[in-house]
């Protein structure tokens, strides 16, 4: 009986990867051979890297029972400011990149301050931040795209365009950055005491505080981390597109939230692992890529992604109900 229970558990814990395999097989068949090719795999890796990077911060946020809607606008702002600094202000690319990473952290700190110190619900606080910074990004260039920085600074191509070439496949550097970020995220959750604190806060804030955890500080730290990873994702995106657009980050927070929730991080907080989020990232990445290959329109893609998000949260809620019986 025990052994049976274990197999069942193993299956349940890895059900998400099963979904991924089924998805790959589906697209492999339906795309008539264009999906599983070395070129397309490189392409998918490039596309998922910004989800993957941003989802590390979002995982922490959702783990403590919060949400961060501002990361789409952080991505936009990072794109605009970074390109603007290089092109219009002739700043060196390293300074520009560092500056926007700092901006990401500052926006995160601001979110954290609103949530932890003032007590604004995370949904509203980060939604307000989203609106403000999206507006600022637009104001900076009156909505005009900024490009040409990669001619002055070819190094800007490095993040997304340069690849490590292996015998069968080329791996873009941004995918390696993503793996590093996910690795760091997993390390923080499993080996550093911050991880223990995050799970504790997500489980029960009051009890966590009374166990000596400085809950407010942790919250601010987490939103700052979320801002940092979102900014990093923004830089990767800028490198990929080679031009900063004022709409580039719009709605990206929903893709990232979908990845994280699909990966089994409970929206009620306290439960989740990076390994699951990796699966979530690849499922959403392949879904987007596969649908494009099959010439499915952008609007139908939206419908599909929305349904996936609802299904993921639904499964989470249903398994919670099952447990309480």
């Amino acid at each position, binding site marked *: *009986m*025990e052994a049976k*229970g274990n197999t069942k558990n193993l299956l349940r814990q890895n059900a998400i990867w099963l979904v991924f395999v089924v998805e790959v097989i589906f697209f492999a068949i339906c795309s008539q051979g264009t999906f599983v090719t070395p070129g397309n795999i490189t392409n998918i890796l490039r596309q998922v890297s910004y989800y993957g990077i941003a989802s590390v911060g979002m995982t922490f946020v959702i783990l403590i029972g919060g949400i961060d809607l501002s990361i789409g606008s952080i991505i936009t702002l990072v794109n605009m400011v970074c390109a603007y600094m290089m092109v219009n202000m002739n700043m060196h690319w390293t300074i520009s990149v560092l500056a926007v990473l700092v901006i990401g952290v500052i926006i995160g700190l601001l979110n954290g301050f609103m949530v932890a110190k003032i007590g604004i619900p995370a949904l509203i606080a980060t939604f307000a931040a989203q609106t403000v910074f999206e507006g600022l990004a637009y104001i900076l260039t009156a909505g005009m795209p900024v490009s040409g920085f990669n001619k002055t600074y070819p190094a800007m191509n490095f993040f997304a365009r340069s690849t490590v070439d292996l015998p069968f496949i080329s791996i873009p550097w941004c995918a390696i950055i993503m793996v590093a970020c996910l690795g760091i995220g997993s390390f923080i959750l499993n*080996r*550093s*005491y*911050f991880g*223990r*604190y995050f*799970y*504790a806060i*997500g*489980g*029960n804030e*009051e*009890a*966590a*505080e*009374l*166990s*000596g*955890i*400085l809950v407010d500080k942790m919250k601010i730290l987490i939103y700052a981390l979320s801002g940092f990873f979102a900014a990093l994702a923004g830089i990767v995106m800028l490198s990929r597109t080679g031009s900063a657009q004022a709409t580039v980050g719009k709605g990206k927070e929903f893709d990232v939230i979908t990845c994280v929730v699909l990966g089994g991080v409970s929206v009620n907080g*306290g*439960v989740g692992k990076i390994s699951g989020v990796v699966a979530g990232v690849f499922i959403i990445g392949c879904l987007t890529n596969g649908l494009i290959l099959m010439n499915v329109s952008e609007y139908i893609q939206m419908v599909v992604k929305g349904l996936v998000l609802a299904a993921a949260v639904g499964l989470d809620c249903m398994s919670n109900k099952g447990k309480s*019986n």
Partner: protein
Amino acid sequence: MSEDFVLELEHIRKEYPGVVALKDVTLQLRRGEILGLIGENGAGKSTLIKCCSGAVVPTSGKIKINGKEFDRMTPQLAAENGIAIIYQEFNNVKELSAAENMFLGRPIRKGITIDRKAMEAEAAKAFEQLHIKINPRELVKNLSVGYQQMIEIAKAIQQNAQVLIMDEPSAPLTNNEVDAMFEVVNLLRNKGVSIIYISHRLEEIFYLSDRIEVIRDGEYVDTLITPNATEDQLIQMMVGREMTQKFPERKPCVDESKVVLELKNVCGNGDKNMSLKIHAGEVLGLGGLVGAGRTELAQVIFGAKPKESGQMFLNGKEINPKTPREAIDLGIAMLPEDRKRHGALLGVSIKNNINMPTYDRISKATVIDLKTERERAEKYRKEIQIKCPTINQLVKNLSGGNQQKVILGKWLAADSQLIIFDEPTRGIDVGAKYEIYKLINELVEQGRAVLMISSEMEELIGMSDRIIVLAEREMTGELKKEEFDANTIMAMASAIVDQGK
């Protein structure tokens, strides 16, 4: 034969993956009787009543209601057959009136609109039947916990419940409210309603019940006629071994020369002018009525609530903790009254709970030393005998007594010098209580100081070296061991209240 019984549970067994919650429990409830159901935490009482309500499906066994046999209940079947359960947590909507709550989910309609007048009239009738004075139009949020419970009972009766199962009904109530509840329960028995009454408080069981059923470790032990039963006998049946005394012996260990904590005119969190001393090796009992300001004082000492004026000294040094973190680092610990909400992190493992306040001490550059983490958890698991298969088990799966031990374990790991217990044994069964008392003894024998808040007079007198009594947010008296007396303490606890009148 069987028509004498309203409800019969025959050889109920419930297995969860890896655990057997109920091995074999049989229960027979006669018409118009009060059956006391007792057993330690984790004995299976809750699972058993969930089998009656349909919330849990038994693995095997039969349920008979008025002789009619069922393999399982569903919430709907239970309601149709007149079984109602009063849980510890009420299912009421605070923003609705008493009457609306009574008819929640099944309002009386007039056409397509809700007939509020009819509902209020029906509710008033039901309240009158039970001799309860509640205005049906009053919002539930304005009613005391006692009245909220009355609404639940009235609702069950209004729905023609023949069997009323009450799970620890007295736990959230004040003494006066308990008396009122007893009256209603007796009234119901006289009307022919059969009642299963679950409680940890044996005196209530003796006062109310006609018969007492004991279960232990998911198994039926025995059923006794109440007048023939003795308290010692019941306790022995529940824990499965002889209990010679309620409070374990303690070596004299108070060191009057070492003051661990001293408060001088501390005000804050509603409390006024608190001055006290706790010595090394001493259990200082803090008595008083609910709301007297005892928990509030503990919160100030632990840094959870701000101190407004006055001074606090720990080992002679003035301290001023602003957060629990600071208090913990100073060597102060608190085991809160509401374990599930404030004490243990239920969704987190035993290992992580024990190490939670001290991760910074076993980490280098924020990276945890996993070996030390495991060893410390194993150490305290052994030392205070936390009963669990592994230290990776989630705390929510432990019984109340073991949860309390985990919380104590984390404070021992934090090397706390002053440990504040707020109602250390609330909701903990008899056997585990004794173990908690033994642990408190060990703490003071090691030279630590304990501040114990307790509303149980017996516990307060049995465990304390000295008692300070609060009333209405002020100190009203201090008693040395030889002066302990329940009546004196009660008088002090209500001193200011009387003056006020």
